[in-house]
Structures are given as structure tokens and as C-alpha cells.
């Protein structure tokens, strides 16, 4: 029998099935997390875990997926519980230890967070982990800790890594807020990059070599999208520089510009939003 029905409706994706419902709910949860729909993600992953027929390999992933959704809603205790379950089932995933560190920072358990983070780094010693953990600490206002981890991320980043200037910028921002910024050492680190391509003008600004006007003129570009992206970054990082000097009004204005103009996928967009929430 020819089982292909070329013209007729064969099946509807997402309609669910009486068989293996757990996987359908799991897939729905993953999609919901990707859309930023935490409520749907939590209910979908909960259904997947309760189904009893989800493939064993996906059960830790379902716990972690639900934890991520809980973290998005700042339900950090619930997230921690799921991450504990995820790690019990699969203890070799650096990302999960990293997320658990995130949950513990949220719950103000800084020492315990650092232990989890060290575990993550031990499993996967990569500059991005130091950087991400530092950004979590920055988000929660723990600037000295963030500066330390950004410094580690700078050390770990390979020579010629095109992202390294941004890690240096974040280090400078955090150290500035922590009151530990060493401009001379920073200047040496920037010189060692051996580049003057964007975002180095921002780094030159932080080390006192360039004025604000020059940064914005360097941010301009014949490519309209690049010009938008670079102005977004200039607004955010100069806004943060102003904040480190307690110039709150100027900082707020720049950060509001960043929120208004940055592409929504840029970290500067979401972190400018976060910063504005905690400003008076």
C-alpha cells in the first residue's frame, strides 16, 4: 500500500500524540524557552517530566530547561531544585553547574556559587564561562567579584580572539564600579591587543586616551547597520563609565538611548535595561 498521500493533510505538527507525549511536551518546552515564554516552558517541561515516557537522555535536559525558565522569572529557589536534580542525573555538564552558580548568586549564596562555577570551569576551562559568570555577578551588582572573573576571562582568551576587546571593556566597567580600576595596567592590556579597530576606540576612552566626541565619530560607518550597532555600544559603555563616576543623570540618558536604539539581540540592550531598573 502506498502510504504517501501527496495532496492530503497527513499530520499536524504540535497536535500532540497519545504515544510518547513526553517528547512532544519536551519539544514544546524547548521552543517556549527560545521564545522567552517562561510560563509555557515551565508547564511543558513539567508535563514532560510527569509523562513517564520521556527518553532517559532528555530527563536532565527537561529539568535544566525548566530551571532556565524559573530563572527568567527570578524563581531562583525553584530553579535551584531543578538544577540539583539535573546534576544528580548528569554530573558532567559544565553548563548546568554554571546555571546552578547563577541560581545561587540570585539567592545571595556567593561562596556556594563560586564552588559551582569552579566546577564548571574545571569541566570546561573556557574564557566564555568566566565572562558569563562575571556578567551574572555584574547583573546582581557584585562588581568586585565580576571584575575578578572578567580578568580571568581576559587571561583565558586566545591571542587574536576578536571578542577579547569586549571582555576587556567589561573588566574595565566592573573594576570602575568596584573602585579597583588600574588605568595604567589597563592601558598596557589595550596596547597588547595591537589593534585600532572598533571597539578599541571605547577602550582608548576608558584608558583616558580619547575624548567622547572621537569615540562617536569612530562609531560612525558607511554601513547603516554597523553604525547603529556601534553607536549602541558607545551609548552603553560610556553610560556605564559615567555611572562609575556617579554622574547618574548623564548615565541614565545614555542608557536610555541604548535601550531605544540597540538591536534587541545585543547584550548592551538587555544590560542597559537591567541597569536602568536599579537606578533611582
Amino acid at each position: 500500500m502506498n502510504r504517501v498521500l501527496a495532496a492530503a493533510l497527513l499530520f499536524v505538527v504540535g497536535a500532540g500524540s497519545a504515544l510518547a507525549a513526553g517528547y512532544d511536551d519536551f519539544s514544546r518546552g524547548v521552543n517556549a524557552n527560545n521564545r522567552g515564554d517562561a510560563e509555557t516552558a515551565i508547564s511543558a517541561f513539567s508535563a514532560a517530566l510527569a509523562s513517564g515516557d520521556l527518553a532517559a537522555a532528555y530527563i536532565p535536559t527537561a529539568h535544566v530547561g525548566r530551571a532556565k525558565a524559573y530563572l527568567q522569572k527570578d524563581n531562583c529557589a525553584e530553579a535551584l531544585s531543578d538544577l540539583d536534580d539535573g546534576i544528580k542525573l548528569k554530573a558532567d555538564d559544565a553548563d548546568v553547574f554554571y546555571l546552578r552558580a547563577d541560581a545561587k548568586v540570585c539567592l545571595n549564596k556567593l561562596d556556594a556559587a563560586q564552588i559551582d562555577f569552579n566546577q564548571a570551569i574545571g569541566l570546561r576551562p573556557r574564557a566564555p564561562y568566566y565572562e558569563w559568570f562575571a556578567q551574572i555577578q555584574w547583573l546582581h551588582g557584585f562588581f568586585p567579584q565580576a571584575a575578578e572573573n572578567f580578568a580571568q576571562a581576559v587571561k583565558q582568551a586566545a591571542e587574536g580572539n576578536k571578542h577579547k576587546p569586549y571582555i576587556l571593556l567589561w573588566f574595565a566597567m566592573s573594576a570602575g564600579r568596584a573602585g579597583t580600576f588600574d588605568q595604567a595596567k589597563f592601558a598596557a592590556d589595550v596596547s597588547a591587543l595591537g589593534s585600532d579597530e572598533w571597539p578599541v576606540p571605547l577602550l582608548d576612552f576608558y584608558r583616558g586616551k580619547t575624548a567622547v566626541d572621537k569615540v562617536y565619530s569612530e562609531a560612525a560607518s558607511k554601513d547603516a547597520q554597523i553604525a547603529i550597532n556601534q553607536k549602541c555600544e558607545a551609548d552603553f559603555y560610556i553610560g556605564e563609565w559615567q555611572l562609575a563616576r556617579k554622574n547618574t543623570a548623564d548615565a541614565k540618558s545614555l542608557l536610555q538611548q541604548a535601550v531605544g536604539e540597540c538591536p534587541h539581540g545585543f547584550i548592551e540592550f538587555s544590560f542597559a535595561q537591567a541597569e536602568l531598573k536599579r537606578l533611582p
Partner: protein
Amino acid sequence: MRKQSLIAMSLAAVLFASGGARAEEENCRLGRYASLPIAFDQDGGATVPITLNGQVQTMLVDTGGAYSMLTESAVAQLNLSPMTSQYVEVQMFGGLRSNQYVTVGSLDMAGIHFPNKDFMLMPDGFMPAADNGILAPDILKIFDVDLDFAAGKLNLMSQKHCRGQVVYWTQDPYAQIPFFLVGWHLRIKLQLDGQEVLADLDTGAFRSVMSLETAKELFKIDDAVLSKNNNRYPFKILSLHGVTVNNPDIVLLPDAESKVLDDNRAPKMLLGMGVLRQLHLYIAYKEHKIYVTPASAH
């Protein structure tokens, strides 16, 4: 980097020399070279473990790519030195380009061995840190690719089989989606709210993405509608050859941001994992067909 045709020939020779092909075309039996366990990364991308120079690497299965790639961190961990290719430059989503590559002395995929395989270099930060690179059609298209997401398996199948007789996992009806190859990309025609759209089937895209400019032209979308819906458009039905997706989640992106949907040869949409993860896909490269059932069909 050696020219692509030479690389393809050397891979095929290794397969046959090792006696890996077990299909018996005359009996219409399917042959499986290898089965790799699928995990999902933090973006919902399907990853598989492969061994490079004795070290296990986590690779994103990326039918939307061209050449397999390794991240800068993976290359550093493997102690490999990048070189500049005379012949190849890849452009990634967002427009970033790379003409750097490394040669891995030994690649093992569940018993399939490739010596001296080249991988293009991908900057760090482009994919989740847990992923070490992408497994792209330069390798995938040597096989038929059976993606059983519900069971968590990527099966690499022999292309030697009777035409059309590949849906082994269910007796239920299945869809056949014809594709044509553009480079190594799987280009398909689908219907979106009644309009025909050319799309690439892209397991490396964790959400489906469409050109904003094309969407505005095809569906007469105005900016007020987009602003009201947080830059999303409420599409109703996506259908392809008997498969229907209600209320498909499609991100609309300006061509200037994607840089891969912006010329006449480009697709106008990438059909990503948001849809594909809900399906069981058998990509028969030689037949130019994708056989599809719901993921949970068995």
C-alpha cells in the same frame, strides 16, 4: 585548504575501504553505518559527540551549513594551528566570514573513521559554549541522515537502497518533501499563509527565521502590526507537502542583520529546529527527498 572535490573523494574512499557499507540495494534493505546519541544544547540545537584526535567533541548537527567547523576554543584545546585557505571562505549568519581552517588527523564517528579532515574555524561566542563546532553537509551528505529526535538518535545510513523505501520506523503515513541542492543547502518550497516561500531546511537554526523585507512584501505587513506584536507577525499556517504547522513561530529579521537571506540566490526563510524538532526526518540526499513523520511516530 584543498579544493572541495578532492576532500569529497578522499572521504568516500575511506568508507568503502573500511567495509563500512552494509546496504544491500538489491534486497531493498537499509544499511546503517553508525548511530550517534543526540543531546540538545541550551538553545535546543541537536548535538552529537564525535572524536577528533582522540578527544570527544560536541558538534551541532547543521544541515544549513556547508563546511564543518570548529570553534576557536576547540581548536586551542586540540592544539591545532589554523591556516588560511586559498579556496574557501564561509559566511555565517550575521555576515561574519572565515577563511581559516585546521586539519584534524583523525575523526571518528561511532566507528566511521576519516583521516586528515579539514574544519573551518568559527570564532568563539557564535554558538553555546558547550558546542565545539558544527557537523555540516560536507560530511553529512555522504550518507542518508536519519534524525530521530524523539528517540535521541542520529543514524548515518547508506545511500544504497531502493528509492522511496526508507521509512522503517512506522507503518503510518509519511510525507515526502522534495528538495534541490543550492551548494549543499537543502532548499524546499513551502506554503506560508497561502504564499509560496523558498526555505532552507536548517537544523542549525534554533528558531525559524524569515527575511523581514520579503515578509512585508508577501503579506503586506505594516510596521504598526509589527510594533503591536513585539516585532512578530501572527502567521497562521505553514505547510509543506502534507505537513501542517499551526501558528508557526517565525522570527522576522532585516536582511542587513541576517546577511544570509539577502540576495537572489538566497532562501527567504530558514526552517529551524522550532519546527524540525517536532518531526522525524530522513534526509535521502541522493533521492533529493526528505521523508517526514511526527517525531513520536513509531
